[in-house]
Structures are given as structure tokens and as C-alpha cells.
């Protein structure tokens, strides 16, 4: 059944908003799951959080595919379509990264020394904040491209902060008396978390260009 252009417009707007909600939700779920993992290990609650993250990721995928289909089928946004689709694809990579990082901990079960817990929780918080700012910047891109820049500098700030904490924790781990293979294992875990912020920053860089192209 054919819907009116107004209804269709509303529908796609809602889908884009929901997609960005899923990104933000994935960031928060990652933070909750990782913090819980650091303190309690891979218990049932972490598994539940991971399942929720997986559902959010699947829904985001579904939405991305639907938005992509409608944009092409209805020939919407002829000028910005490729930018929008690239943005959605890259945001999807961030959600994937969040899922895979938490999944890695659930598979490999690295055990972090207790004196790193506080830093690791801070790292997870900063990464989640970074993803949150990216989601807000993306939302702003659809409504007010001129204001995107103000949001993106926060993504960059959180990414630098995440790098700083990741290096600090890695150093701390390597300064400890743990066996080398465990040190390397822990560092890989820390880097997988930090990598999410790097990924978010890459998307932010692309978003800055897309926003400039749309500025009036």
C-alpha cells in the first residue's frame, strides 16, 4: 500500500532517530557490561547485558538496511544520500565494535588486577561518553549541520581522554609482576576498548566533512 509523502517522511525520520537511539543504547550497555565484567567477571548479568547489546546491534542493522532501501527506492536526498549512507554504515561499525569488544571479554576471560579496576571503569565511561557524543552529533547533522562542529570536538576530547587512560592502565599492567603473556592479553583487552573511541573519532572526522557540505 502506498503511503503519503508526509507519512513516509515521518517514518524515515523515526527510523533514523531509532537507529541513533540504538547507537547510544549500545554505548551505555557496553559501559554497564564492561564495568560489571571488570568487577565480577563474566557472570550472568554480563551475559544478559551482552544479549541486550546483541539485540540492539541486530535492530540497528535492520534499521540501516531499511533506511538504505527507502532512500534508494524513493530517490530521497539525491545530494546527501551517499553521505548519509556512509555515515550510517560507519556508525554501524561502531556498534559492531562495541559488541565484539564485550564479546571478546566473555570469550577470553582476561582477569584485570584490582588496582586497575577504577581506571578501567573510567575508560569504559569515557568510551561510552564518546559514543554518546557521536550519536548526538549525528542527530545534529540531520537537523542543524552548522552545529555539528560544536559536538564533534567533544568526541575528539573523549577519544584523547580514552587514549590517555588506556596508556596509563597498560603501563600499570606492564609495570606489575604478572607473567608477560597475561600482560599482553590484558593490553589487547584494554586496546579493544580504546579502539571503540578511535573508531568513533574516525566517524566524527567523516561527519565533519559531510556537515560542511550541507552547511548553508
Amino acid at each position, binding site marked *: 500500500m502506498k503511503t503519503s509523502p508526509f507519512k513516509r517522511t515521518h517514518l524515515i525520520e523515526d527510523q533514523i532517530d531509532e537507529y541513533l537511539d540504538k547507537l547510544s543504547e549500545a554505548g551505555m550497555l557496553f559501559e554497564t557490561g564492561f564495568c560489571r565484567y571488570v568487577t565480577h567477571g563474566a557472570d550472568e548479568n554480563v551475559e544478559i547485558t551482552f544479549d541486550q547489546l546483541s539485540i540492539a546491534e541486530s535492530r540497528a542493522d535492520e534499521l540501516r538496511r531499511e533506511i538504505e532501501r527507502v532512500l534508494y527506492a524513493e530517490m530521497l536526498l539525491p545530494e546527501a544520500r551517499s553521505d548519509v549512507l556512509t555515515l550510517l554504515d560507519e556508525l554501524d561499525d561502531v556498534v559492531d565494535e562495541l559488541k565484539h569488544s564485550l564479546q571478546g571479554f566473555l570469550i577470553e576471560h582476561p582477569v584485570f588486577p584490582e588496582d586497575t579496576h577504577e581506571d578501567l571503569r573510567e575508560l569504559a565511561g569515557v568510551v561510552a561518553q564518546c559514543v554518546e557524543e557521536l550519536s548526538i552529533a549525528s542527530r545534529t*547533522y540531520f537537523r542543524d549541520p552548522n552545529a555539528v562542529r560544536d559536538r564533534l570536538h567533544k568526541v575528539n576530547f573523549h577519544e584523547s581522554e580514552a587514549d590517555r587512560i588506556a596508556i596509563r592502565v597498560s603501563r600499570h599492567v606492564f609495570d606489575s609482576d604478572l607473567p608477560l603473556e597475561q600482560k599482553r592479553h590484558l593490553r589487547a583487552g584494554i586496546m579493544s576498548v580504546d579502539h571503540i573511541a578511535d573508531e568513533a573519532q574516525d566517524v566524527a572526522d567523516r561527519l565533519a566533512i559531510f556537515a560542511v557540505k*550541507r552547511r548553508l
Partner: protein
Amino acid sequence: MNPVIFIFLSSGLFLGWSLGANDAANVFGTAVGSRMLRFRTAALTCSVFVVLGAVFGGSGAAHGLGALGAVNALPGAFMVALSAAVTVYAMTKLGLPVSTTQAIVGAILGWNVFSASVTDERVLTKIVGTWIACPVLAAVFSAVLYMVVAGILRWRKPHMIRLDMFTRFGLILAGAFGAYSLGANNIGNVMGVFIVSSPFRDVNVGGVFTLRGIEQLFLLGGLAIAVGVFYSRRVMMTVGESIMTMSPIGAWVVVVAQSLVLFVFSSRWLEHVLLSHGLPALPLIPVSSSQAVVGAVIGIGLCHGIRGAAQIRWLVLLRIGSGWVTTPVISSLICYVMLFVLQNVFQQQVCEEVRYELSPEVATHLATRNIPITALREREGTRAAGSARFRRLLRGEGDFTPREIEAVIEASEIAPIRIDPKRVVALDQRALSDPQLQAVATLARRSFLHHWQFALALAEQTEDWRFRPDTRDNRAHNRAVRADLDYVCRVFRGVLLSEE
């Protein structure tokens, strides 16, 4: 009606087709080029509104070209339109930018030279002036509009998807307005030269309304433009991108700005409103939609300051600008040569000889219009065929100012008119007021040698036919009387010519 007439009209239809295939692309070019609208949607909207504009709004600007040169024989009009069409077609084929308006103006000048008719310098200056005013006005309109739209968008912050939908609707509406304005303004280019020699008479359609002869002529021209629109796909795709890459909002602003420019140069309503408020009105003459679109795009570019100016492809603009100079020159040369061939090889009368005589009666009439009586008496008896020759004789020792010479030429033109009662009944009731119609009816069966005699006779009958003192408040009235007078003269002069 003689079917040969349609052979002569064919060149106008060819010109209409060319205009549709080229200039119509200016209306929807940016929208189709930016892929906001499908070509089919654009072409359909454009063709419908071009016809509406031509038939219902075409009379405003169409007479503008008549003032430049009254092409008074069908074969001549045929060749004028054909020369313009050939120029447009050839230059388009060669990939050179071209404007139909300039082509037709050039061709009329060629006819003027060939037929020894005077080119009204004031009208020519006015037309050439619009070639500068039109892009400048379009640039101002588009810059202001763009800033207003940008301000609203920054304030309202609509979602990108919603903005896309509104822009599409906006483009269709603006394009429809643009197509209407194009039809209203540019029909003068296509059929303007046929007005004087038009074969169509007023037709009453089922007793509901009267389709005037001029409207039938414009309907035919409008249909030719509409057909041409469907051949404009390639031009449409390139117009939007050739000067500067356009955003959809930019595309919308360009279409609106361009449409407004075409509208202000063709709307009688706007002219009336401006004049009745004591404001200066723009001349109602066909302007180039190509120039308007170029001006509008530059306007947006300049809104962005140096960054925007750097984005404009100035070399492309230079090429377009050079086309504006070469088109009228090439067109007038082609027209002159082809008129010569048509007259001497095909033995066709390309212009009707218009005779001028400064009789004592004309001199007395002119004296009442503050023309120096002694100079008039000295020239009394001067007669010539063709306004250019007559002007040369008048100039003589330089007793008259250029304006006075114009007035003498106008008054001395021998243009016999006979008020045929059958035609009085057929006069368009919408165009004239009741007192005006009554005044014409009173003069039934009378004949006049000069237009001014007819005008004076009408003025004696009713206030509605009288010119008022030339003050700001009276300008709208005087223009309306002038237009009505032109209409009735055309009707009764045509009758006399066909009876002869």
C-alpha cells in the same frame, strides 16, 4: 483562412520548439540537474504551465517587441522568426550559449534595416538595458531569497528528510510559476512578430467565453514551446551544474528568483499596482531566462562571499556573456540576408510599405502637442515610403529634437482604419469597458487616415478613451488606454487590409 498562413507560422512554431528545448531548461534545469525532480515530472509541469502563461498572461510583454519593429507582412514575420530559430538551433548545436530573446531582437533589427523602418532607439535601449537589469535583478532576488531561506532553516532546523520533501514540493510549485512566467514573458519572442499580421480572429467558444485572436496565436506558440520542453532533457541536466554546483535549496532559490524576474517583466497586474502607488514600473518586454538563471546562480555564489565567488566557474560565465553579444549580431545578419533571398528569389513581400506624409492636418495636430509650428510648416508636404527615409527627410537642417521627430513620424503614418460594424460586435467585451465599446460603436462606418484621428474621435465620446496629464497617478490609466487603443486599431486596421 488561407492555409498558406500556417506555412508562414511554422517558423514561429520552430522558434517556440527551440525555446522550449533550450530556455525551458532554465526553469527546471537546476531541479533536474540536482536530481531532486524526475525529468518527466519537470517536463509535464513545465509544458502545462507554459501554455497557461502564454495564453492568459502573454499579452503584457508580447507588445514590447512590437514597439521595436512592427513586422507587418507574414512572409517577413516568418523570416524574422526563422532567422532567430536558426540562430538558436545552430548555436545550440555548436555548444554555444544562446538566448532566444536576443536572437529575436537581432532578427527584428535585421528586418528594420531591410524594410527601411526606424528602430526606436528608446525601445532598443530599454531592451538592451534589461539584458543588464535582468541578471542583476535575478542576482539580487536570489541573494535576498537565499539569505531569508537560510535564516528560516537555521531557526526552524527541519529534519533533513522533511526538508528534502518540502524542497521537492517547493521546486514543483516554483517551477510551475517559472513555467507560467516563461510562457507569459517569452511568448512575445515566439509569436510577437506575428501579432501585427496575425490571421486569427476572435472566436466565441460555446457562448461561454471569447478566445481572442491573439490568444489563439499564443496558444499555438505555447503548444510549440510545450512540445520543445520534452526535448530539453540534456540541456536540463547540464544547466544546473555548468556554472556552479547547486544544492537542492540553491536550486529552489534559483528557480524562484528567475521566475520572479520573468514575472516582473511580464505582469500587467504588477505594473498597474506599481504605477497606481506612484512607483516606477519595469518595462513589459520579453527578457532572457538564460540571463536570469545565470544572474540567480551568481547571486547565491556571492552570498557565500569569497568562498562562494571562488566556486563560480567564471570562464563558463565569460563564454555565456560572449554569447549575449554575438547572438543578436549573428541573428540580424542571417535575417537580413534571408529577407533579401525571400524577397528577390521567392518573390515574397516581406514588408508592407508604410507611407508617411506631413499633411497640413497632421501639422496642425502636432502643433497642439507643442511641436514647433514653424518647423512643421517648413516641412509640410514631406512624404516618403518607410519610416527611415521619412526620418532622413525630416532631420534636414536639424530643427526637430529626436523626440519631436518620433512624434512627427508617429502622427504622419498613413494607417487607414474603417470601423466595420460587424467587427464592433465581435470586440472583446473583457478587454474594453462598456463606455469604450459604446464609443467605438458610435463611430461605426467611419474611416480614419491616421491612428491619432481615430484616438481623438474616441476621446470625444468618453472619458474612458481620454489620456490624462502625464503624472505618476495617471500613468497606469494612460498605459491601459494605450493598450486598448492598440487593440482596437489592430482589429479595424486588419479588417480594412483584408477587405482591400
